[in-house]
Structures are given as structure tokens and as C-alpha cells.
């Protein structure tokens, strides 16, 4: 064994020498020069953060602080972060993270609890006060809705309705719709506030056209569909939409805040959930044929919409920018946004519960005090009114109530009004370390129901049984 050991040492030494010669040793951090490296998915909201930091960030401490984002492709962002954290690489001082990952990486000891910093800093307290409560709950607390705080919003995201105003406001279409279905075809933002799932169904049926049929003032150049929302096995796609149906139908998901009394069996496969899921599957049949593959995700419906194949979709505002860009979108001048449909209750009011998207950013546990202070200064800079307004003008979203309350906020981007209106309706999926296991199995079962291999009830029964097993094993259900 001695031989092996010394060989390993020799290799290590040799390797280190070579690494030196390749000039790849980590930068030495001195008191004046501090680099805050943040793992970030590669897309506009994070690119903006980097560009804006380069332009305008000056550390109030007087130190020479640079925020350096390591841009990682979205498709592999999770792997890169997971590999970096679990191998103890300690490369990042801050990380942009999906809210669902909080439990995993907090219990693994990688994300830092911020309570003592917040308690000691009135500025941070004011910030937390100003953040929208739905965002604090989803992005910052672990256990969910507890008083332990971890993250701040980097990019808050919600789903809204994107629709073709050229078609929905077309007089001929409106008259035809009124004749067949008796209601109004929603044209203005206010009209959409009154759209429930029944109206959504009518819209879907109304706009279903074959190639060559009359559409609006012209003729459909391809098969045209009225409505679509996501139905895809990828990551959390189906779940994000189906959860909305669960909540609106009065059902729900396993409630992590009620641990260990909260149940999976009887909750996940409750009659309300089954009814909601059946309605989801029902309305899905109005969508373009991609839904049959269980591969109609947020990007597929975005493309279908941008290429003029569908009249209205429900998608994230974070994906809204390309639809306004004539280079990527055929409908850039014909699009408008509204709140999502919901279920009309017995009192006539519409419930729009939905699953929140977007990402918080967090601090890691291995930073020195100086680095922590500098990182929190970056948080304050990012969540300052000034930066947030610039961000919102460039297609981002603010999480601050004060910024969202400004009159001109609505006008920054065409979806902002709907986004702000949807925020109070947001809930979130689980944050526990077992979330990925629950998610993967659930996505698989949902996919079976979507592709017609199972009924809604069979799928939900399977989900409930599985969750019961996993959560009992994790001692989260007694």
C-alpha cells in the first residue's frame, strides 16, 4: 500500500506543477480585491445581472469587488451545480437556484441560512418586508413557510395567458363566437379577467381550424388550434400546470408544512384532484398534436404560438421576450397578455391558483465573513429600486412590492400587469430533499395519463402510493 500512496503523491505533485504551468490556480483573494463567483443559468435575466454589475456596481465597503457569473447552459445547470456542491468543489460564493432545490442543498450543508445577517441589518429587514410574501415563502424559506431565510429573488416568474389580439379582437370571429357559444371572445385585458376554463374550452373549440379554413380576416395556412398549455415529461413541466388544476379544484399536493401529520394517500388521489386532473386532460385534447407525445413543454408551446399555430397559450413571462422579437416570432405585433383562466366558484369568483416559477439566488456556506458581507451588499444592490427598475425595463421582473406598485411598472413590458395580478395566486411545489424523486415519478405517471396509457385516477393512485412510501421512508409521514 505504501507504494500506491507514494505514487499517488507523486502524481498529485506532478499534476499540481502542470496545473501551475497551465496558469489555472485559483485567484488569490486579498482584502482589496474580492471576486464573488455565482453559478447562473445562461439566459437574459442573469446576463443582464452581469452586464449591469459591470456597468454600475461599486462596493460600498470600498473593496474592489467583482461579481463574476459563471454562465452554464440551462439544460445542464442542475448537473453542474449538483456536481460542484456535492463534490465539495467550493467554487461558488453565490448560486442561482430553483426553489425546489432548496431542501436538497440546505440539508446537504451547502446553502447558508441568513437569519443572523438579516437580524443584524435593518436594510435587509426592510428588503424582506418589501418582497412579495408569495416570493419570500417560495424562494427563501426552508422548511417551507418557516422563519428560516435563505434566498432572494433573482428572477420571479409566473405563468400568464399569451393570446393573439388580431384574432380575439376580430369582429367576424367575435360575432361567430357569440353565435355559437353565447359569450364574448376575450379581447381586452379586462375580458381575460373573466375567462374560466369553460370559456377556455369554448375558445379552443371555436378556433380549431383545418388548413385552408377561414381564420380572422384571412385563411389558415396550416392546421390551427385555439388553446394549449404545457404537457411534458421534461423536468417539472406537466406538474407546473397540473398543480394549478389540483389547487383550483380544491385538492392539493402533499403538504410539507403539515409534516408529519400531512398525508399523501387520500390527498394526492382525492376526488377533487382526480376531477381537476381529468379536466386538465380533457382541455389538453384541444391542443396541437404535440400533446399526444407527452413532449409539449414550455418551449414547444412557445414555438407553436410564435409560428402562428395556436391562438392562446399559458406560459411563463420569463419566455415572453422572444415572442416580441420579429426575428424569432411571426406574431410579434399581434400578441397581448392576460391573467390565466381559473375555476369559477359557486360565488361566481374565479380562482386562479398556480405554481410559481423563477429562481432565487443564495449564498454558500464556505464563505469568509468579508465575502458574506460583500455578497449581501450585492443582494442589496440587486434589490435596490434603481437596479430593479432597470431590470424590469429589460424584460426582468421585480419581486419588490414598492417597485411593482409604481404606475409605470405595468408599462415596462406588456405582460407585467398580468404578472402582478397573478402573484398573489402563486403557491409552490415541495422543497424537501426528496422533491426530485417525488417529481420524477409523478411526471412519469402524469405522462402515462397524458399519452393515454392510464386513466387520471390510476395515475394519481400510483403517485399517492409512491409518495406515501418515499415520505414514510424519509420519516416525513407517520
Amino acid at each position, binding site marked *: 500500500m505504501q507504494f500506491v500512496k507514494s505514487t499517488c503523491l507523486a502524481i498529485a505533485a506532478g499534476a499540481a506543477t502542470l496545473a501551475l504551468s497551465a496558469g489555472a490556480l485559483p485567484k488569490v483573494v486579498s482584502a482589496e480585491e474580492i471576486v464573488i463567483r455565482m453559478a447562473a443559468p445562461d439566459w437574459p435575466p442573469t446576463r443582464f445581472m452581469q452586464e449591469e454589475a459591470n456597468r454600475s456596481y461599486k462596493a460600498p465597503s470600498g473593496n474592489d469587488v467583482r461579481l463574476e457569473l459563471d454562465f452554464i447552459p440551462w439544460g445542464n445547470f442542475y448537473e453542474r451545480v*449538483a456536481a460542484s456542491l456535492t463534490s465539495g468543489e467550493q467554487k461558488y460564493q453565490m448560486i442561482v437556484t430553483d426553489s425546489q432545490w432548496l431542501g436538497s442543498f440546505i440539508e446537504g450543508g451547502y446553502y447558508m441560512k441568513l437569519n443572523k445577517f438579516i437580524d443584524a441589518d435593518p436594510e435587509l429587514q426592510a428588503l424582506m418586508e418589501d418582497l412579495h410574501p408569495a416570493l419570500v415563502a417560495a424562494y427563501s424559506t426552508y422548511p417551507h413557510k418557516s422563519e428560516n431565510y435563505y434566498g432572494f429573488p433573482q428572477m420571479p416568474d409566473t405563468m400568464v395567458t399569451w393570446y393573439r389580439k388580431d384574432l380575439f379582437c376580430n369582429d367576424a370571429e367575435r360575432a361567430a363566437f357569440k353565435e355559437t357559444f353565447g359569450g364574448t371572445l376575450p379581447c381586452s385585458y379586462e375580458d381575460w379577467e373573466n375567462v374560466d376554463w369553460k370559456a377556455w374550452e369554448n375558445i379552443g373549440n371555436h378556433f380549431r381550424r383545418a388548413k385552408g379554413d377561414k381564420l380572422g380576416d384571412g385563411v389558415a395556412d396550416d392546421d390551427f388550434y385555439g388553446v394549449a398549455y404545457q404537457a411534458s*415529461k421534461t423536468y417539472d413541466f406537466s406538474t407546473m400546470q397540473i398543480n394549478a388544476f389540483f389547487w383550483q379544484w380544491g385538492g392539493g399536493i402533499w403538504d410539507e408544512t403539515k409534516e408529519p401529520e400531512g398525508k399523501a394517500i387520500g390527498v394526492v388521489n382525492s376526488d377533487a384532484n382526480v376531477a381537476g386532473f381529468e379536466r386538465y386532460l380533457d382541455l389538453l385534447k384541444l391542443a396541437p398534436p404535440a400533446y399526444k407525445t407527452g*413532449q409539449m413543454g414550455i418551449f414547444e408551446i412557445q414555438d407553436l404560438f410564435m409560428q402562428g*399555430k395556436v391562438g392562446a397559450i399559458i406560459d411563463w413571462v420569463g419566455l415572453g421576450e422572444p415572442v416580441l422579437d420579429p426575428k424569432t416570432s411571426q406574431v410579434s405585433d399581434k400578441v397581448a397578455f392576460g391573467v390565466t383562466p381559473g375555476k369559477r366558484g359557486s360565488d361566481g369568483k374565479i380562482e386562479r391558483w398556480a405554481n410559481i416559477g423563477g429562481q432565487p439566488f443564495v449564498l454558500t456556506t464556505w464563505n469568509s465573513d468579508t465575502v458574506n458581507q460583500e455578497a449581501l451588499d450585492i443582494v442589496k444592490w440587486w434589490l435596490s429600486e434603481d437596479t430593479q427598475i432597470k431590470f424590469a425595463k429589460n424584460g426582468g421582473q421585480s419581486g419588490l412590492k414598492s417597485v411593482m406598485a409604481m404606475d409605470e411598472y405595468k408599462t415596462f413590458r406588456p405582460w407585467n400587469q398580468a404578472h402582478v395580478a397573478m402573484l398573489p395566486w402563486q403557491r409552490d411545489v415541495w422543497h424537501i430533499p426528496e422533491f426530485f424523486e417525488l417529481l420524477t415519478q409523478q411526471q412519469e405517471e402524469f405522462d402515462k395519463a397524458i399519452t393515454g396509457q392510464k386513466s387520471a385516477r390510476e395515475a394519481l393512485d400510483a403517485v399517492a402510493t409512491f409518495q406515501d412510501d418515499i415520505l414514510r421512508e424519509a420519516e416525513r409521514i407517520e
Partner: protein
Amino acid sequence: MSHPTEPQGFVGWLLSPERRGALLVAPAIFVLFVMNIFPLMWSFGLSFFNYRANRLTVPSFRGLYYYERVLTDPVVWERFQTTAIIVGSSVLLQLIVGFLLALLFERAFPGRRILLMLVLTPMMLSFVAVGVFFKLFYEPTFGLLSQFVSVFTGEPYAILATPTSALIGIVVADAWMWSPFVMLLVLAGLVSVPKYLYEAAEIDRASWWRRFRTITFPYIKSLLLLAVLFRTIETFKLFDIVYLITEGGPGSSTETIAVYVYRLAFQFFRTSQASALAYILLFVVIVLTNLYLYGVQRRSQEL
């Protein structure tokens, strides 16, 4: 140049003929040891502990618990079956297509060089490109396949909608990408068959099959063996194409064992269980390859 003076001492000892073999293979073994054996042993060790990368608890020894757990996991068996179907049909398809392509390029003809390059390009593509573009080809609204089918049926076609057709979609993409590999190896064997052997067979009026069995096959045998071996090993690990085209769907009908290992290790953080499954997988592949090599040897002795 002949009989140079033999070096003395350590160098002489090292260079002596009986150590020549060891010396020649030493650099390779060294690199492989450093880069492969250590990580393999590490995860082998992990498979006996209950280590989870997203927990702070100190790992404790669990013996064969995770092996038992993996072997009794019905999901594992399902994934094994899916993988076996994909490996079997894809490698078979690669062999057939690769062989036919090799026959096409065996003779010299005008334009052969450039046409051969065209056929070789699929395997030069990255998995990302093949996965992403085949997904686009298969898409029911925009995809070429659906557009093509709808010319005849008038209906858009969604190949990824049913378990069987989705499997076919995956196998076609994988086999398309890697048949050129088989072709190149077979071709290397084919072009090396001395022509006079064929001429002699022609004179004997030997049947095509006989000519193939007695002349061609012996020349391509060892290369064919390599092709099957390598393609089987690689297809067993099939991950990217599946993940990009169907992500294992519809339902779980195209989810391979490699995708499941990935989920266990990276998504579920069942690190030890993933290691155990990987070693069971390794064991299966080793047994299969040994059976295969043994079978090939037996057959070649009979012939």
C-alpha cells in the same frame, strides 16, 4: 545495427526481453489506473455505505443492503428490459445497415471517396445535435416525418406518442448515427481480401453464400467481432439521445438503465444505491461480453 551492446545494470534489467511486454503496456496501465481505477474503486466502496450527497449525516456501513435493494427493485428490471430491447434492435440494425453500406463501398467507382465521406458524417455529429434535431424531425407539427406522412394520410403523425413507435424512433436515431462505425470496420476487412481468392472462387463457380462464408467472412470476422462488442458496450450506456428525444417517455417506455442510474445518482441523490446498480450493470455487461467472446471463440474453432 545488429546486436547492439546490451545495456547493463537497472536499465539492462528493465529492458531485458522477458520484461518487454510489461514495459510496453505499463504506460497504458498507468494512465488507466489513475483515471479509471481510482474512481471505480471509490464508487465501489460507496456502494456498501449509506451515503447521500444531500445529507450531512455521517455514512454508515450497510453491507450488501443496496445490492439487495437494487435487485428487488421492480423499476430496475423494467429498465433492464427496455435497455435490452434497445441494445438488441439497435446493434442488429447497425450491423445490417453497416454491412450493406460496406458492400456498397467495397468496389472502386467514380465519386467513391466523396460519397463515403457523406455516409460517415452521422457519427461525427455530437449527441446533442442528433438528439435535438431528431426530436425536431419527429415533432408532429413542424417535423419532417409528420409532414412526410401527412402527405399520404392527411393527418399529422406523432411517432413519439406510443411506447412501441417511440422505441423505434430512438433505435432509428441511434442506429443511423452508428451504422457508419460498423461500416468502416467491415469495409477495412472487405478491402483487404486478396482479389485472387475471389477470382479462384469465380472459376470454381462457388455460390455467393459459399464465397462469403469461406473467403470474405474470415477476413472481416475479427473486425466484425470488435464492432459488435464496442457497439453493444456503448449502446448499453445510451443516455443522451433518449434524454433529449423522449426523456424516457411516453410514460417510462423508453427509459434506459443509464437514464435510471443518472436519476438515482444525480436527481435522487441515492448515491450508494446508484453505485450498487452501476456495479450490477457492470457485472451483467462483463458476463454478457464473456459469453459472447467465448461463443465467438468456440465457433471460430469449429470453422
